């Protein structure tokens, strides 16, 4: 059973966590987050025109990369990093030297819980990542490691230690993360339901991962968090986080790592233009019907014991099975390999077998 813990304060992890923020506009939103983010190092990935100057509010410790920097650092391998799409954020994951990453969009603000208090999203993500996940058996009272919860009757005792948590997927109040068709049909719908739960997504179950409010253990799963080829020159957009989520989940399931979803909530303020979104997503909506069966059926050989080897194996399968859906997937499979090469170059020591 979950050990009876007194409510100990959540560690800040300020020297172990980087906050990665892609931006093309400005970083005004950081002012609202200041009380929660100021202790941390920020990695800003500036998309779009590199000659534009992005102002970072005073008092934050940060490094900023624009497209020129990405090209300079990666050379020809920069081709795997998207341009004119927030998918470029994964460059930030690659250059970080920390154990944990929290990534957030620049139109996401501090939400309030039902008692009216500001939600410290980062603290909740840390709690999620520092406590185990339970992918092998569903606990009907959700995360058993939260204060005030536990494993229910019937939950096998041998499964109560859980597995390490690799990813913490947060949610959004106000503008929900709907696709373009849903946005067009329900332009006024807002997510007002605060669901006070965190839960592990069971092994073998896929989900649509949203990159707006996301944290992960870079040492456990970093190389799998490639956000694909989107934006400029690409036939598709708004599937970057989806792609990363499906690859990541297959690998986590294989390596015995956990993925949580639920709290924390942030306040999503900006509804993007549904017509623009429709153009970006259009192909994805069709391709997804092939992608999902592919990922559901994907298996990785026992010999793949590192994230990198799992990811390279997946890219082979993408080429073999999805290349015929569209040539884009051949390019994507190549880009996946380029990403791993670049990752290993920038992170030379971190080639330990993962998970157990």
């Amino acid at each position, binding site marked *: 059973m979950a050990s*009876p813990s007194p409510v100990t304060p959540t560690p800040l992890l300020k020297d172990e966590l980087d906050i990665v923020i892609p931006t093309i506009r400005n970083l005004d939103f950081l002012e609202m987050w200041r009380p929660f983010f100021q202790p941390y190092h920020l990695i800003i990935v500036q998309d779009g025109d590199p000659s534009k100057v992005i102002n970072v509010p005073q008092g934050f410790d940060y490094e900023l990369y624009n497209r020129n920097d990405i090209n300079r650092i990666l050379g020809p391998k920069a081709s795997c990093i998207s341009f004119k799409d927030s998918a470029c954020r994964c460059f930030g994951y690659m250059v970080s030297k920390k154990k944990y990453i929290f990534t957030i969009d620049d139109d996401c603000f501090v939400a309030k819980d039902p008692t009216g208090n500001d939600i410290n999203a980062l603290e909740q993500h840390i709690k999620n990542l520092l406590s185990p996940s339970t992918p092998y058996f569903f606990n009907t009272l*959700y995360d058993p490691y939260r204060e005030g919860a536990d494993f229910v009757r019937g939950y096998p005792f041998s499964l109560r230690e859980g597995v390490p948590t690799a990813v913490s997927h947060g949610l959004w109040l106000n503008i929900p993360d709907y696709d373009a068709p849903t946005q067009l049909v329900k332009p006024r719908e807002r997510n007002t339901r605060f669901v006070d739960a965190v839960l592990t*997504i069971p092994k073998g179950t896929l989900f649509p991962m949203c990159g707006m409010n996301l944290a992960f253990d870079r040492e456990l799963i970093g190389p799998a968090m490639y956000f694909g080829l989107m934006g400029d020159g690409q036939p598709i957009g708004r599937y970057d986080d989806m792609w990363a989520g499906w690859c990541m989940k297959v690998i986590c399931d294989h390596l015995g790592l956990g993925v949580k979803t639920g709290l924390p909530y942030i306040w999503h303020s900006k509804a993007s233009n549904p017509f623009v979104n429709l153009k970006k997503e259009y192909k994805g909506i069709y391709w*997804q019907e092939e992608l999902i069966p592919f990922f559901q059926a994907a298996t990785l050989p026992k010999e793949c014991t590192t994230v990198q080897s799992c990811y390279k194996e997946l890219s082979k399968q993408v080429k073999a099975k999805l290349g015929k859906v569209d040539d884009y997937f051949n390019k994507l499979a190549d880009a996946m390999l380029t990403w791993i090469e670049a990752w290993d170059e920038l992170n030379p020591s971190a080639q330990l077998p993962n998970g157990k």
Partner: protein
Amino acid sequence: MSPASVNDNEVDIVIGAFRSDLTSFMEEWRPIFSRFHLIVVKDPDVKEVKIPEGFDVRVYTESDIVKVVGSSKASLFSGYSSRYFGYLVSNKKYIISIDDDCSPAKTKDGDLVDIVAYHLNNLKTPATPFFFNTLYDPYQKGSDFVRGYPFSLRSGVPCALSCGLWLNLADYDAPTQALKPDMRNTRYVDAVLTVPLKSMMPMSGVNIAFDRELVGPAMLPALKLVKEGKVRWETMEDVWCGLVVKTVCDHLKLGVKSGIPYVWRNEKGSAIDSLKKEWEGVKLMEDAVPFFETLRLSRSSVTAEDCVVEIAAAVKERLGSTHAVFVSAAEAMVEWVKLWKAVRSLDH
């Protein structure tokens, strides 16, 4: 929530009575239950059951049970398994069943949680077991499928089982509650979600509802602990039933939801006293879970009855040598299907 409309004639509320005086229980539930037909099945150790006026209720005693199933099969319905007799004789589409030590919960606004309306809402809207929706049940008002959810999976599948939750005393096992005697569940999680395909879960009989036409044959009394007692800490019948019905639902492409509605569960029994009994149920789960995890049913099993019979055979073959209680469970499952078919044929 905008509940699907509830037709009084499609619901039976089934209660297994462990106490003789059900007056306070029924009075608490009157605002919610009085519209519906109730089936109360009396545990044999309980003397006559006392029920207040104003309810449309049928009480079944052990002699009623013997009349229907014969004296040799009556033991199937003893103890916590008494309620299954109610499932057997009901002719309604939906069954809602709760323990007799529960009261209605209250929402944050102070209203009574109408478990009938919520359970039926769960059962009457599709389930989505093939892909996880991060905004939980997309069919609830104010929710929908999120970006990235495949469109071909958005019509969902019929929901066969709705598992509710509990405020105050959650359904923990005896060791957990004994270790944390003051722990109370105060967290109202305002969501219901589909339990994904192939994901197993511990079903709690304290607060459930199901579509009898879809999975009635799989909601079965089978696993009886040698030292089964009169408190939930000393049973596993519902947990076993849950493993069976989830396997059947996964195979038949039906859905199982878990979450709201909540009931308020009251104090009953002593966790420490239950702890003194052998942890039989706990040990059994260590064998049962790996078995269900790897169980695959054949394509020829196309009804819930077929599935149960196939599962029973597999239980006997693969778990029978581990513990005699599994052999009895397998036999009980086969008996149950026979009874189910026999009672159904009487209706025609």
